[in-house]
């Protein structure tokens, strides 16, 4: 086992930057999730560790060793591919023992380890089957078995659950977490599914357009997103981002104007000088240069509301209800998450929204960076 480190790692493909000066460390024994939309560079990062791509500049380290020039076969990492990448002409047994054969492990030890791993993953009855004779879930487990059979220094998992149906994905997600905890092997796990990231990762590295946006624990990322991208990407539905037209000093705390009303900004200017500076900037700007971010669960419908809105759609999800509204400017959308038992408004109905005090985040409109210690 070992930590995996990116030092200023950069990779471009035909002039397009896939990875931009990535500085990141997966600690020894940690499950670090690389989260981001398609094309954000997360798979490229994983392939740099596997040795399937070489960085244009910067370094990749496994343990203390810089591995930029080390062949994939000599890196002692195991990778689980999105498509599983099983060897279609080999049986389950031969697939799982393939990495052991390449390392010259003697036949008796090979048999013992294959039996142990396949039994632990419930594959004992399928050893002589070919991959085409297995279901998607079984193939996925064979890919996992092939990865863990040789106790590598690190696991690299590239969206391994994306080809499974919802129920199986839930089960396998728990299996992978349990397996990683049992083995304690450093794991880099790539996904675009933020629920997967939140539930599996010890820490999450959120990426966008080849750059690292934030790396932290799941709760910290959810509660204190570093920028507007992270705020919007993490959470389902993501954080509401509204143009902040003006920022005013209390009392008792600062508040901001949004289309159709006001939102409480929590801290007074004296305790949050960054907010005060931003307020000065927004004052002179011709177009909104700040964004107010509010999680859907931090909003409620109520007569005491400070934002006027019109209901567009009401989505019933069973345990909860999402109310999608438009603000008075006609373009800004806002989602309210409420419990199923709460009163459901009808489409087209005018409503008033209340944002819980201390829950509103402020981001700059241009870079999306977080302003001060908002909420």
């Amino acid at each position, binding site marked *: 086992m070992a930590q995996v480190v990116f030092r200023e790692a950069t990779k471009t493909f035909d002039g397009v930057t896939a990875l931009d000066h990535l500085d990141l460390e997966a600690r020894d024994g940690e499950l670090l999730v690389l989260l981001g939309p398609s094309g954000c560079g997360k798979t490229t990062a994983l392939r740099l560790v596997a*040795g399937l791509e070489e960085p244009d500049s910067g370094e990749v380290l496994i343990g203390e060793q810089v591995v930029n020039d080390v*062949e994939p*076969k000599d890196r002692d990492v195991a990778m689980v591919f999105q*498509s599983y990448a099983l060897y*279609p002409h080999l049986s389950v047994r031969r697939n799982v023992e393939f990495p052991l054969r390449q390392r010259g492990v003697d036949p008796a030890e090979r048999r013992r380890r294959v039996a142990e791993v396949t039994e632990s993953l419930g594959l004992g009855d399928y050893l002589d089957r070919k991959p*085409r004779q297995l279901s998607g879930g079984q193939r996925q487990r064979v890919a996992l078995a*092939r990865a863990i059979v040789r106790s590598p220094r690190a696991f690299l998992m590239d969206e391994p659950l994306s080809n499974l149906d919802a129920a199986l994905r839930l089960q396998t997600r728990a299996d992978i977490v349990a397996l990683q905890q049992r083995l304690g092997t450093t794991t880099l796990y790539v996904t675009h599914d933020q629920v997967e990231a939140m539930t599996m990762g010890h820490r999450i590295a959120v990426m966008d357009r080849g750059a690292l946006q934030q790396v932290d624990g799941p709760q910290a990322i959810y509660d204190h997103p570093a920028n507007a991208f992270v705020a919007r990407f993490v959470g389902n539905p993501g954080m509401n981002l509204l143009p902040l037209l003006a920022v005013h000093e209390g009392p008792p705390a600062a508040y901001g104007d949004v289309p159709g009303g006001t939102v409480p900004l929590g801290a007074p200017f004296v305790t949050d000088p960054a907010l005060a500076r931003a307020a000065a900037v927004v004052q002179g700007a011709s177009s909104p240069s700040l964004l107010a971010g509010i999680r859907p669960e931090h909003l409620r419908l109520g007569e005491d509301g400070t934002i006027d809105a019109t209901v567009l759609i009401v989505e019933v999800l069973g345990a909860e209800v999402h109310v999608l509204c438009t603000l008075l400017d006609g373009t800004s959308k806002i989602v309210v998450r409420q419990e199923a038992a709460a009163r459901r408004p009808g489409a087209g109905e005018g409503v008033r929204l209340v944002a819980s005090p201390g829950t509103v985040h402020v981001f700059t409109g241009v870079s999306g960076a977080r302003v001060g210690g908002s909420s």
Partner: protein
Amino acid sequence: MTTVSPPTGTAVTRGRAQAPGPPRRARRRRVREAALGYLLVLPALGVFGIFVFYPFAANFRLALYRTPPYPGLPSHYVGLQQVGQVLSSSSFLQSLGSTALFVVMVVPTGLILGLLLAVAAYRRLRAMAVYRIIFSSTVVTSVAVSALIFGTLMDPVVGLLPWLGLNPSPPILENTTWALPAIAVMAVWQFLGLSFILMSAGLSAIPDDVLEAARVDGATDRTVFWRITVPLLSPTIFFGVVVATIYAFQTFGQVDILIGPTNAAFEHVNLLVYNILNTIEVNKTSGQAAVLSIVLFVLTLGVTLLQLRFLERRVHYGN
């Protein structure tokens, strides 16, 4: 006058309900669809019937008749006697031996070289698209053009060998030892384009991530090639073997253009198809040519079936 009665109406209604029930309607639709299908294939069937099936059947009849070398004289029915006579002739046996040797030289060489070129071209290197066009260009080169090129290269005066300081005597295309390998080189070159295209298509069908998984799993380039690429390419290789064998059995153009029946090495390069051609053109005995063409058909079919029976066991058809 009051003859219209309710029972009649009832009978008509019942008749309608029972007569064209759902199964019969479905059967009628199937018949209509089948008739349309036959109608659509009829033109192709007609063309094939006239130019392929009828000559094929007539050939079997022709094999039982001895045809005189001069036109206008009647053919005589000789039955299987002619078959035995052709099959036991020294010219046939030598032709069969040369053809077998030729197939052995052309098939593996053509396929292995095609595979090597495809593997080389598969690497994402600069200007590889140009090489791909060059490698596959022999597909569109006619036998006459390739014979002209190789005839010049093997010319004892202006060819490649004298330029290299090699002057085999007799010249290579008149040499009883080297004429057949020389023709085989030409055939391999000609087949290389198709072999390259086949292997390239087969390689591109192998998922990249399977090869990458093998590399991460610790396999060397050689292991990846032999343990992953070749098994996954086996359906293509198998298809290539069948196609190359048929191609080798049917080769004759190069012999016709560069060797000819008056060449000193002719007996050693008299491939089966060229033998058939000569039997008609020179000997004027089309009955014997018919026997030879049936032998060629049986041989090609037999070898193909043997390949299907034994080689296909080692083929992995993946998912």
